[in-house]
Each structure stands twice: as C-alpha cells, then as structure tokens.
C-alpha cells in the first residue's frame, strides 16, 4: 500500500543504477539514520548503547568484511577473528608509538595492516578452493593468535599480557579509555561503520564487485572475460581483511576498552562472524546487518527480555535456554530461507510491493 513504486519513473541510467532506486527505501534509510544518530544517543540508556548497539555495530562491520570475501567472492574464511586481532594490535601499537595522532585515523589505518596480512594468507587461494582453502585460513587464525600471545612487543610488555586502551581525546572529549562515555564511543563507531558500509556498497555495485561475483559464480568464464583471478581474489582478501581489521580495532578501543587476544580474537569469534554472514545472507550488505543483529542482539534480548516479560528464570537455566532458543531459531530461519535473512527481507518487500495481489 504505502510501499509502491508506481509513478516513480527513471529517466536516466544513473537513477536506475542508484543503490536505493525506490523513494520509500530512501525515506526508510533516512529514518533509520535519524534514529541511530539522534534518537538513540538522546534517549537510549547506557545499557542499550553499551550492551546492544556497540556490539551490534562492531559485528556488523566484521560481517560486512567477511561477506565481501565469502559472500561476494565465494572464498570461505575462518580467519576473520585473527584479522580483527591484527587491526586491534596494529591500532594499539600505532597509538602508543604516535600518541599525538587522532585515534580515529589510527583505527582506520590499522585496517591497512590487516589488509596486508590478509593478502599474504590469501595467496594460496589461487591454487586451492573450497574446504581446503578454509583449512588454509585456519592456519592464519592459529598462527596470528599465537603471535598475539607470544610476542610481548605487540602488547607493549604489559604484565597482564593484554591490550590496555589508553585515553585519547577528540576535540577535547575522551573517545577511548576509561573516561569515554558510551554515547561518545557509540557515535564515533556509528560514523565509522556508516562510512565503511557506504564504501562497501559502492565497491560491490561496480566493476570490482562484478568481478568478485564472476569469480565466485564461474571462475573459468571470468578469466575469459579478462578478469585475472589472483588479483581479484587478493583484492577481495585485502578489502575483507581491512574491514575485519577496523572492526577489531573498534572492538578493542570502542567496546572492550582492553583485553587479550585469546578471549577476543579466537576461533569462536571467526565462527560467530561466519554464522552471521550465512544467516544474514551471503552476498548482501544488508544481510550482514541482519546476521549481526540476529546473533549479537538476540542473546541479550532473551537474557533480559524474558525476565522483563515476567518469566523469571534462574541464572544457569536462562543461560541454557538462551542457547536452545537461539539454536532453534537458526534452524528455523535456515529452513524457511536457506539464502538468509536478506532474501527473506527481499521476498517480504516484493510481497508488499504487489499487495494485495499475490504477484
């Protein structure tokens, strides 16, 4: 009814190729941005921001990164946790060596270090494919995680063996460290995530995204079209690792406020992000958000939502129930739509467009 594109005629290719060609989509996006930038900082509690929104955004960024590699280029990686770690440690080293430089510059720059490491571990991808490549990326995960723990230089020889995030200011306001308020950290994180989402969406909609998808769908034909496989795959590894690296730096500096690699950048983290991408929808930017929301927000919602609805549960029961419900929901969504929540969203939009007619 309200979601109709009737009467919206496109008179140029530019309008037809816009990422949101339908007016209602653009309005919806503006509303979401307004809520995220204005309503949540103004009215959201610290709990909402710190426990729900910040983790969601960090995971969404990492999921976009992995989606570029796995969803768009068809290379499954189990090293995203480690690449996040590279970002976090790079950012830590950079900001302790050059404390005068703005922390946001270093958060973004740390992505380049992750990208470089990602390219190195992406080199085998020309020769090996599928599950074998997945195993090769596992090597990255274990090797890098080992380095984070065993090379004390990386954590500045701290006795705790962990990153201790120092305080850094942006225009006189603390952005990182113990004194930074959740709202400040949230706003900084949100800006980074939106900027990088916009860039990712630009990339996948152009020549570069098409060459990635061509490699994914039929590499022989792609080569014949003049796409060189190794550069295309390595570029995908680089961009993907860049996103994971920035997500890792954000995780340490804007969310955890310090921590150790074995907790934050372990194999579980890699799996979590892979699940987000699969459940959210392979090859879809918005799917990355859905997947991140599903896996990072739902447990919190269940944990605090059920008691709020009057269902009082003891600690361990709630914990176990949480896992059960989450597992059942994952199964349910994968059966209903194997292509992920993003496809479900598309189908829903299509239904709305032609409502009340079936097609």
């Amino acid at each position, binding site marked *: 009814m309200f979601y109709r594109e009737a009467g919206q005629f496109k008179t*140029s*290719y*530019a309008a037809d*190729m816009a*990422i949101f060609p339908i007016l209602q989509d653009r309005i919806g996006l503006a509303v979401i941005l307004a809520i995220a930038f204005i309503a949540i900082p103004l009215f959201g509690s610290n709990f909402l921001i710190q426990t729900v929104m910040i983790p969601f955004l960090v995971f969404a960024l990492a999921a976009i990164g992995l989606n570029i590699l796995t969803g768009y280029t068809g290379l499954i990686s189990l090293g995203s946790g480690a690449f996040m770690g590279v970002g976090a440690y790079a950012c830590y080293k950079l900001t302790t060596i050059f404390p005068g430089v703005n922390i946001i510059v270093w958060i973004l720059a740390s992505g380049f270090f992750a990208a470089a490491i990602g390219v190195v571990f992406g080199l085998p991808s020309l020769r090996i494919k599928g599950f074998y490549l997945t195993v090769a990326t596992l090597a990255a995960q274990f090797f890098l995680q080992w380095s984070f723990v065993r090379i004390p230089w990386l954590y500045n020889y701290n006795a705790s063996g962990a990153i201790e995030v120092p305080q850094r200011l942006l225009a006189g306001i603390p952005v990182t460290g113990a004194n930074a308020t959740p709202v400040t950290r949230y706003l900084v994180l949100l800006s980074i995530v939106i900027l990088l989402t916009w*860039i990712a969406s*630009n*990339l996948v*909609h*152009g*020549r*570069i995204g*098409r*060459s990635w*998808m*061509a490699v*994914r*769908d*039929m590499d*022989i*034909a*792609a*080569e*014949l*079209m*003049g*796409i*060189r496989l190794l550069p295309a795959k390595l*570029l995908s590894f680089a961009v993907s690792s860049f996103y994971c690296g920035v997500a890792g730096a954000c995780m340490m500096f804007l969310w955890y406020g310090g921590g150790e690699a074995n907790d934050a950048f372990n194999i579980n983290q890699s799996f979590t992000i892979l699940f987000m991408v699969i459940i959210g929808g392979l*090859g879809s930017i918005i799917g990355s958000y859905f997947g991140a929301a599903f896996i990072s927000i739902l447990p919190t919602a269940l944990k605090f939502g059920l008691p709020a609805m009057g269902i009082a549960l003891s600690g361990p029961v709630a914990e176990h129930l949480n896992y059960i419900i989450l597992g059942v929901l994952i199964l349910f969504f994968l059966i209903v739509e194997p292509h992920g929540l993003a496809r479900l969203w598309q189908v829903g939009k299509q239904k709305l467009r032609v409502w009340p007619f079936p097609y």
Partner: protein
Amino acid sequence: MNETMVQSQPVVASASAPEKLLTVENVTLSFGGVRALSDVSFDIRKSEIRAIIGPNGAGKTSMLNCINGFYHPQAGRITFKGKMRQRMRPYDAALQGIARTFQNVALFKGMTTLDNILTGRTLKMHRSFFWHLFRHGPAMNEEIEHRKYCEEIIDFLEIEHIRKTPVGRLPYGLQKRVELGRALAMQPDLLLLDEPMAGMNLEEKEDMCRFILDVNRQFGTTIALIEHDMGVVMDISDRVVVLEYGHKIADGSPDEVKADQRVIDAYLGVSH
C-alpha cells in the same frame, strides 16, 4: 542499430583476397596417452562464419580450448591477427579480442542479466579502485557509458524483459542468449560459439541463427562455431571443417563437405 556498435570494423566485402584472422597449423594436443588432436591445420578468414563439426569426441571443443588458451598444444602453431602465439592464458586471449560461449552455459548464475553482460565490458573499463570507492564522478560516468552499450546488446538480443532477473532463474534458451550477449559485450574480433543451439527447440534455434547472422553481418564479427544440427551448419556457415578422432577429414564449403565420402562415412558409419 546504433552507430556506436557498428564502429568495430568494416565488413570485408571482396572474397577474392580473404584476410586470414586465425591460422591453426599442425596442432597436436594429447592428454597422457590420449590424442585429442593430431596435426590439425585450418584457417579462419576475416568476417566469415566458420563451422567446426564432427562426431562426439572428435576434438572440436579441444580445438576451441586451444584457440582461447585453456589448453596448450604440444606441437603446432596458432597465429591470431598475424601474431604467432606462445603459451597464452585465457586472459591474454580476451585481451586480443577472442570471446566465447560454452557448451554447457557458463553464466554467472547469481548475477542479473545486466550484470552478466556488464561483466563482459570489464576489459574496456579502466577507472581505478580509488574512484570505485565513491561510485560518483568518473567511475559512475564510466558505468553509465558501458550501461548504454549493454542496453544496445540487450535490445539487439530482445532480452529487455529479463534485464534485472538473476540468470540462474532463466530458462535454458534465454540463458544461451544472455551468454551470447556477454560475449558480444567484449566487442570481440573472433567469437567462438560452442554448440549455441544445443537443447533448443526449433523456434529458439531460428532466433539464435538470426542473431548469429546479424552479429556477423552488422558488426563484421568473425565467428567460429561448433554445432551438431547439420541443417543449421550448412545453412549459415561459409566454410566447414570436419574433425574425426582428432584428425581433420574435410575442409571446404558446405556443399563440398556434404559430398565428401569420408564425411559421409564418419557420420553414417561404414561397413567393414
């Protein structure tokens, strides 16, 4: 048809001095002990439709794979546009202007028709990664320019209605047509078609023939095609080369080939 598409090169009108676009000389290809091609020689003239026929397993597809660099023959020479080629990769073949379609459709199934055809323009796009980060300005102008060209191909192949449909959902006949479109988007000098009409009904075959002839006449594109439908081959091709068990057994105009005793034997079998 818009002028931009016809610009490629003028059709060679005089048959008296045919220019050779591609020459295959004494090509031998074997996989272990199996000889797929032995000592095959033929040429393809500019702007002609050249058919390669033969019974199953005769080495026709292997021949195409040699021409566009998937296989490297053990012996023999392949000369394209007057240049002898050393071991080349499919990427180099694409760069030199050889496009092809596959026997079993090799489209990018998850992408739309339009994206598939746009992918064929990859080699003509030059904007760097930096501009693609923003999708504005030069990168976007380039996209739009190539979109225009692709729209002309879409118009030519009459597939406007499936422009934004993922090709995995299309019926087979349309997929074949999209694949032809993707190859055409490369503006090739030599177009290799591997069984473009396999599995089609009569109507679809007629459409496909029309497209092949139109491509040849309007853009002067040289076409080499493998096809099993003899009616089609004899009707549309200028010259035919016949392979059997990796050997060339006949080469000439459709009428000559049809009358050749060895070809008749190869197809109908011969009593011993």
